[in-house]
């Protein structure tokens, strides 16, 4: 029998009070400031900005503090915050070729204009726990070298000259889809796919990218280039009519160069996958570019044989706020649904027992 229930308000209030208490932890340990998070857990902040789809390091740092370091919870908080603000408009597309480079590597070209710079990277570290960090040792000042600033054109522009690589089409009049304004429809164009991937879950995209490497929709990728650094964001307000510099944003860009495609009209050439992510996140940018390429099956007449190539599967499941909402809603009260199921299973069991009894009697 179903009984309506109410209540729990006091328990909920007290649970939130307990959460705040646990978040703070022992008062003998100094309180963590959002400034410290922003500057010393910068890559966590970058991830929350990327998947929260909102560039605001101070806000992301505060969200991480509020979420006790649960990054998906922090992403959820950031997504909720953005719904409270009006949108002034759309920025001009960022010019990543003009990036102030902090890291730039290519796995395909050893010597490229602008050079390869490692920047602040975990690569080539030994992955040994550094106990000096626990002692709060101030690191020595990093090395400095004075050089002429050299332009660092995108690697894909270098190959473009020979026609060996697919060229991007550029139509500045093209409508730009926005999945925050209209629900996703399938098939989805590449602009919408890239938007979904840019805010998609890093772990999910990493696994899908990995799956293409292991043979589930193989694309034979090479890292044409990865670059990280700052670009100026620009916006043209209606009342001014010229591009206003909004400030610099940190971005990671990955150009994945993939194996050939040719057609009756075009000789064989490399194809491309693209990744662009807020902050410093190579893993995410690389995964995004692998999945972007895998999803371009319609353009290249490829068969959809693997999960990473199935845009409805990928785009419907890459958003961790949607995913966590649906998975976690299972813990909310389902008393009525479950009562109905209970009634059903009792009835089915009664019918089964009755049938068994009839069979038994018939056998006798």
């Amino acid at each position, binding site marked *: 029998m179903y009984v309506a229930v109410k209540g729990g308000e006091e328990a909920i209030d007290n649970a939130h009070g307990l959460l705040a208490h646990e978040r703070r932890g022992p008062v003998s340990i100094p309180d963590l400031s959002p400034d410290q998070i922003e500057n010393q857990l910068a890559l966590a902040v970058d991830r929350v900005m990327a998947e929260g789809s909102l560039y605001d390091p101070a*806000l992301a740092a505060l969200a991480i503090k509020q979420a006790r370091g649960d990054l998906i919870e922090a992403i959820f908080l950031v997504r909720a915050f953005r719904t409270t603000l009006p949108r002034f408009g759309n920025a001009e597309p960022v010019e990543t070729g003009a990036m102030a480079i902090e890291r730039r590597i290519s796995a395909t070209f050893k010597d490229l204009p602008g050079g390869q710079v490692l920047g602040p990277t975990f690569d080539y570290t030994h992955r040994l726990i550094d106990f000096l960090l626990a002692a709060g040792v101030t690191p020595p000042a990093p090395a400095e070298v004075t050089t002429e600033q050299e332009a660092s054109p995108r690697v894909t522009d270098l190959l473009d000259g020979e026609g060996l690589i697919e060229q*991007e089409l550029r139509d500045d009049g093209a409508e730009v889809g926005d999945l925050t304004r209209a629900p996703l429809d399938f098939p989805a164009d590449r602009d919408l796919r890239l938007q979904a991937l840019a805010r998609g879950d890093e772990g999910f995209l990493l696994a899908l990218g990995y799956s293409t490497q292991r043979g589930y929709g193989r694309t034979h990728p090479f890292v044409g280039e990865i670059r990280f650094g700052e670009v100026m964001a620009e916006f043209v307000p209606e009342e001014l009519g010229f591009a206003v510099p909004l400030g610099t944003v940190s971005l990671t860009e990955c150009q994945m160069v993939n194996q050939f495609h040719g057609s009756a009209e075009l000789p064989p050439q490399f194809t491309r996958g693209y990744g662009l992510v807020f902050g410093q996140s190579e893993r995410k940018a690389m995964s995004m570019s692998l999945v972007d390429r895998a999803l371009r099956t319609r353009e290249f007449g490829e068969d959809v044989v693997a999960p990473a190539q199935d845009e409805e599967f990928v785009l419907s499941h890459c958003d961790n706020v949607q995913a966590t909402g649906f998975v976690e809603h299972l813990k909310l009260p389902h008393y009525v649904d479950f009562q109905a199921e209970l009634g059903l299973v009792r009835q089915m069991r009664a019918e089964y027992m009755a049938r068994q009894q009839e069979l038994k009697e018939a056998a006798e």
Partner: protein
Amino acid sequence: MDLVMRQQALGAPPAQNPEIAARQAVMATCTGATTTELEQALGSLGPIPAASDLRGTEPGLVMLRGRMGGDGNAFNLGEATVTRAAVRLEDGRTGFAYQLGRDAAKARTAAILDALWQGPERDAVEAALAPVRQRLADEAAAKARRVAATRVNFFTMVRGED
């Protein structure tokens, strides 16, 4: 909308107009400044016309965009918080600011500086912002030197007999 404005709205490169380029440069300096730096810059100008809000200073969002492959068609990358301010000086000059972040005081101060820059105080505003410009340039140069130290200089090992 005239043709020039329309071209700009469509993402054409910023006006070749040196007046606009100089104004953009001041705006860029203001985005990199701290609130304190801007308030000090404004304070150093001496008596200035009073400013009133043309539109309330408010936080909002701007959708940032990338290009497919870096140079192709645009796509929506994700939003950024942006605070905008619009002021009118007593003498009728108007000033605007659009800045990343949620700092209302900083955006409003920048809008006042933008308004002042468009009149007789231009040189004074440029001079007041010079230390900020210098700090930003110094920091960028120091960062570039640290990054340059991580540049890889490849050398090829001698192979075999040849």
